[in-house]
């Protein structure tokens, strides 16, 4: 029997987002035993998902022990026991570390496995992606706005699995009964009323829409639809929840009064959940309730929005949205641009699962609806077509070609950016890659023919560095190229260096393959200008000598 281990040390939402991966693995390997290593704090979530064995890591105890220099042997004991337990039955057939942290990679390194995916430690103990999809995930950190793929699809892609998929979570009859009891005890009629869920807080205040916005929205929903607002949250969020509840007639503050089971059951009863970027949105998605996300600050719905069909997202139309990683914004205008009536309209659309004419909120706010593309990947389509999303389609095409083909034979690319300036940049990048690839082939073939002396190696190495520097320069010049360049450099870093010839061959193949879809697409006529592409002579690629 095959044994597969997922290492997911993240929070509730991330664990729920693992469920399509588990389901996909079950379909692909029906006999396999699927294990999950997770943070003990989320045991309640893990017991509601479909894994064969769960291995809780006592992270809080570990961190406590590590906080005191006197207790690091206690921490050693915790971690050692954990590692030994996982290795008890011999090596796993596959280990997929989903957690993008050096700590999780180091933890995974303690577990014996025949194959590894996700983030890992290499021989030099550096934190590296083990596969192209994971490299993609790391590369996207340099410009997350260029990412067209949802995290779930990236994970599925890592393991060669396909969607469409959905989040899953067990909700028991007892959970449903307790939810009904809670509603009745609060004076609500669980059978006849229209419930709308609100999750008004989030893990960071930057991710939160305004308190006043939620209150006004609640009043509008109550007044127009007679909806009863249910405010969810943990006990620390009780004050905020009560404040908003007191401003909305009939609203119930349930913060701190529900376990995960009751929350899921209440969400199942709700017609829609309106939320900031939180774990609750994934619970709603897992129980089939449509979600409206107010996407503000650093939240990027394409990465981690609710997974499934029929969810809605609002985002301010600003060049800075969403914030880049590690940005601390002092003027979050994105929050002000989204008005309660925008959210109201979208909530009504979502709860009616309405099709037909799409809402148009004007130039300041954009709305999106979720669905699946022809390859079974989640996509958020704009309700009103937006030229800014054009480039994203190109990214999707390109990355599909690179990630779904093999690294030496990428798939075809039919689309190039419409903007001539942007196309020129991509063409330049492809040409540089071609030249670098050609140079590496020369280095390899010449050194096979006769041993090169140090000076010759240096000269060729300098030429190669120059090409790569031009590539980096392009990435600096145009943010949209940055993930592409980073991806190639990350992949190259991961190649074994024991044999310089093998390293050169692999890097050369990688570069050539990355250039190929762009170069082949440019030979087809442009949809706008009928083949009159503004390619400069300087950037004409040297014909590839072939692998």
């Amino acid at each position, binding site marked *: 029997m095959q044994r597969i281990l997922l290492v997911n040390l993240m929070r509730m939402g991330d664990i729920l987002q693992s469920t399509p991966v588990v389901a996909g693995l079950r379909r692909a390997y029906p006999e396999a035993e699927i294990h999950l290593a997770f943070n003990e704090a989320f045991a309640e979530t893990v017991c509601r998902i479909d894994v064969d064995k769960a291995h809780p890591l006592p*992270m809080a105890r*570990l*961190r406590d022990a*590590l*906080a005191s*220099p*006197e207790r*690091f*042997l206690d*921490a*050693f*004991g915790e*971690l*050692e026991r954990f*590692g030994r337990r996982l290795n008890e039955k011999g090596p796993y057939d596959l280990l997929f570390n989903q957690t993008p*942290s*050096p*700590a999780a*990679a*180091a*933890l995974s*390194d*303690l577990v014996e496995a025949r194959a590894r995916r996700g983030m890992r430690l290499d021989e030099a*103990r550096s934190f590296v992606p083990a596969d192209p999809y994971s490299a993609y995930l790391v590369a996207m950190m340099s410009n997350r706005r260029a990412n067209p793929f949802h995290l779930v699809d990236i994970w599925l892609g890592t393991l060669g699995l396909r969607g469409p998929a959905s989040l899953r979570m067990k909700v028991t009859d007892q959970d449903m009964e307790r939810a009904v009891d809670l509603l009745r005890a609060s004076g609500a009629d669980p059978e006849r009323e229209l419930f709308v869920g609100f999750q008004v807080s989030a893990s960071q205040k930057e991710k939160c829409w305004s308190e006043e916005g939620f209150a006004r929205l609640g009043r509008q929903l109550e007044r127009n639809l007679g909806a009863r607002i249910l405010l969810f949250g943990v006990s620390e969020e009780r004050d905020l929840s009560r404040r908003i509840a007191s401003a909305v007639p009939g609203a119930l503050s349930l913060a701190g009064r529900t376990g995960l089971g009751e929350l899921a059951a209440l969400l199942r009863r709700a017609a829609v959940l309106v939320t900031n970027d939180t774990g609750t949105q994934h619970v709603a998605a897992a129980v089939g309730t449509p979600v409206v996300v107010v996407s503000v600050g650093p939240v990027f719905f394409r990465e981690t929005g609710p997974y499934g069909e029929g969810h809605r997202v609002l985002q301010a139309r600003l060049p800075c949205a969403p914030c880049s990683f590690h940005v601390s914004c002092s003027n979050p205008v994105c929050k002000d641009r989204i008005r309660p009536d925008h959210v109201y309209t979208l909530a009504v659309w979502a709860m009616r699962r309405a099709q037909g004419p799409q809402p148009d909120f004007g130039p300041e706010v954009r709305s999106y609806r979720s669905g699946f593309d022809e390859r079974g990947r989640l996509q958020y389509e704009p309700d009103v077509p937006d030229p800014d999303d054009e480039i994203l389609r190109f990214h999707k095409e390109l990355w599909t070609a690179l990630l779904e083909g093999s690294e030496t034979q990428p798939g075809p690319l039919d689309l190039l950016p419409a903007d001539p300036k942007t196309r020129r940049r991509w063409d330049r990048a492809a040409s540089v890659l071609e030249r670098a690839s050609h140079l590496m082939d020369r280095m390899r073939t010449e050194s096979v023919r006769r041993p090169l002396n140090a000076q010759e190696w240096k000269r060729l190495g300098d030429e190669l560095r120059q090409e790569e520097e031009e590539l980096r320069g392009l990435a600096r010049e145009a943010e949209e190229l940055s993930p592409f360049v980073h991806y190639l450099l990350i992949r190259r870093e991961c190649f074994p260096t024991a044999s310089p010839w093998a390293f050169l061959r692999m890097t050369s193949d990688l570069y050539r393959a990355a250039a190929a879809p762009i170069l082949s697409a440019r030979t087809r006529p442009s949809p706008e200008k009928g083949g009159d592409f503004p390619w400069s002579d300087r950037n004409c690629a040297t014909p590839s000598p072939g692998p």
Partner: protein
Amino acid sequence: MTTLEKNLSALRERQPETAARVERSCTPDGLERIETPQGFPVHRLRGRLLHSQRDPEREARKQIARLDRPPGLVVGFGDGFHIEALLERFPGAEEITVVEPEAGLLRAVFETRDLSRLLSRIRLAVGRAPAALVRDLTSAPAYWYVHPPVEQIQRRYLEAARALWSYRSRPQGPVRILVVGPVYGGSYPVACYAKEALSRLGHEVAFADLSAFQGGYRELEAWSRDRNLLVVFEELLSRFLEKRAEAFGPDLVLFLAQAPIREESLKRLREKDIRLAYWFVEDYRRMTYWERIAPLTDVFFTIQREAEGPMRAAGTRCVRYLPLAALEGFHEPLPLTEEEQRRYGADLSFVGAGYPNRRNFFARLSRDLRIWGNEWEGAAPVLAEMIQDQGRRVSAEESVRIFNASRINLNLHSSICHDGVDPHGDFVNPRTFEIAGCRAFQLVDRRSLLGELFEPDELALFQDLEDARDKIDHFLSHEEERLAYARRGFERVRQEHTYDLRMQEMLGVLYEQGLRSRSKGKSARDWAQEARSPELRQYLEQFPAQGPVELEDIVGEIRKKNNPGWEDRVFLALMAFKEESTCRGSCS
């Protein structure tokens, strides 16, 4: 036989070397003789009476009557009245050691009173450096008897001795120290020297070297008059320093002047229970940013005695005077090649930046001078040919060669408000110690704080332009005198003014203020005994049995290995979790 000869003869019988030292000493500056009604004189040194002018014997008896047992050590010989009272009160006491930092004072006292009986019953430690004194001591400062006027007259000596004692009797082993210097500037080398000295003392030291940011900082300075831009840059560096501190986990952070640390960062570091020391090695009157920094530190060290009052008044918890020094092993006599001698040698040299007072002074000096150093742009034509290498910056290593190669090193303290010598100048610049540390001869302008750092026969001083010209001419033709000054200055630096000693003193003060190693410093053996599994016990025993070992030490060793084993990998994972927690803490 004169009184002096009688006293010296009595001393010579038991301590011939000390007698010789007293005999050759000069009268200290600011010493006056005052007659008393009893017919014997007492002395006033630098404005302070050593004993009662009305009845010194009675006063001494009264002071000594307060003691309930004989002290092991007396600091300050004064005119000897209190020592006589002490021997009278405790006739059977073991031999008492009397420390007198100034040999010149003793000589003056020996000239006025017959102390031969007294000298046969005590041991004199004359001009003995605080470090040497503390090294040989068995009794704590609480059991010393300090002659009251000495508290003021020899304040520096006593502070150093007490702090060195605190360091010697420190509660535990090494501490972790992060040294932070400026992006560039005069205090940068001082930061390097401090770091070096602390490492030599066996502490775990990391240096936050900000010199890598110099290019960016200078570019900003050059292109923008907007001070706010520089503040933003400093804020960035300040956050960077916080990150360095988080990663290193120091018990103490030592900042040098101009370190780009902001108040918010200091507050955050304090919240993490990290002790903060700052060595403000510049003029507190000219550079006033100390006002916002000093109150946030545990101990603020200054090179100006006069700064202590204003700094305390500004709310600083502890202010201490700590003069600069020389780095042993770096500032030292060097054998120079002929080429080096040609390149750097001169009758008269100066190393330093082109401050206005120096430009003015050197232009009028009318002597053949080689000027090394930068910031001389736009100097008067008469100086142009004196400036070496187009006024480029001279490295610390080159400075040492120049000091060694020059017959006279002119040392004029900088000033932006004077034409030449600052008549009220107080602090002593690093060059004074560094030249002396090279056993090189220097002519230095008079500074009010020099007197308690060097004896008059250890440094040749000048007080104005004319005096400087005379002394240059004199010393150029009196090589023996030059060599004697250089030798005595060198010995003083080695005994009292090295960075190793300064850092001991600094840490001594910080120990008094509660500095502790936050790890109890368990050794690998201690950890091994606590290990639950025999494998882990065996694993931990491979580390040296002595000295504290922490997770970081173990991981540091593991990272040197090629093929880490099971325990190695568990420790590496632990470290990764620890680093993640630290980051989380700082990001939240």
